[in-house]
């Protein structure tokens, strides 16, 4: 793009999140898909039927990638996105993030955790971030509480079978911490397999965690990783020996 406009973000208000998003689309003249929406506050009137004066506020930034390959940047793509916005009705894409956030908040409140929850939508997935109190009670042993919550939120929002976005729940940066500790574990066990020349079995893990371990050892030409077992008992075996 000729004019490189770095991540500018704009704030919008509305009675509901949807209204605010629609406003953002309108003002910026872009379709919902071209915007990165962050929910700042939700309207108070909505979910629990409380009547309050609080307005919904969102922050919208324009997604950086652009698809205008033609000679006239500016004119043509704008018209195209305008048309697209008209076709899709504009607001519908923000629903998943909003619903996921509401549901997460609702469950947390009933669990006795009144933590702030924010939603971020990025392309394929929606990330719900829960601001914990640092106690880790929400994470649980091996992340089981957070995973259970994430599973239920995904189930509830995907019950209609239409293919919707994957929802990721995170708190206190648990997901990225978990990822680095799994990588470290993978490398350590990989070394052990090489040293002893015997296969090393890793404790059963879910698909997401297994993937991290597989990827961590993918580059190592002296090791092969395989998964064995079924369902919740599926685990990785690290085998010494050449790939292939």
């Amino acid at each position, binding site marked *: 793009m000729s004019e490189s406009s770095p991540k500018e973000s704009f704030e919008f208000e509305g009675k509901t999140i949807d209204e605010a998003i629609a406003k953002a689309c309108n003002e910026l003249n872009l379709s919902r898909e071209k915007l990165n929406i962050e929910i700042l506050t939700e309207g108070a009137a909505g979910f629990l039927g409380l009547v309050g004066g609080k307005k919904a506020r969102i922050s919208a930034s324009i997604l950086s990638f652009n698809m205008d390959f033609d000679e006239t940047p500016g004119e043509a793509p704008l018209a195209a996105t305008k048309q697209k916005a008209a076709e899709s009705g504009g607001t519908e894409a923000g629903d998943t993030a909003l619903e996921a956030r509401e549901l997460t908040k609702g469950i947390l409140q*009933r*669990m*006795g955790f009144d933590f702030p929850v924010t939603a971020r939508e990025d392309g394929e997935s929606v990330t719900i971030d829960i601001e914990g109190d640092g106690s880790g009670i929400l994470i649980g042993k091996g992340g089981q509480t957070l995973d259970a919550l994430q599973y239920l939120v995904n189930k509830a929002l995907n019950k209609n079978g239409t293919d919707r976005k994957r929802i990721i729940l995170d708190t206190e940066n648990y997901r990225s911490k978990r990822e680095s500790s799994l990588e470290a574990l993978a490398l350590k066990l990989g070394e052990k397999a090489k040293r002893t020349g015997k296969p090393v079995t890793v404790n059963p893990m879910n698909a997401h965690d297994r993937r991290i371990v597989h990827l961590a050892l993918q580059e190592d030409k002296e090791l092969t990783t395989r998964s064995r077992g079924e369902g919740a008992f599926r685990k990785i075996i690290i085998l010494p020996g050449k790939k292939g």
Partner: protein
Amino acid sequence: MDGDTMKDLIKYIAQALVDHPDQVDVSEVVGEQTSVIELRVTKEDLGKVIGKQGKTAKAMRTILSAASSKLNKRSVLEIIE
């Protein structure tokens, strides 16, 4: 009062999962240390609250125990057919 919170929690989650939220019924049997939360849904929705290999039920139980441990008590979830 505490019991109501757990009942509420399960009802809220179950209603989000099923196709017929109006037919979700939750009751509680209060014990000395442990309370039993009984969840009833329509037959068609039974699969939705149990899930593949009981995964959904297990997730609800995990949430329930996290919530009740905060109140220093124990709760058990029973899904009644």
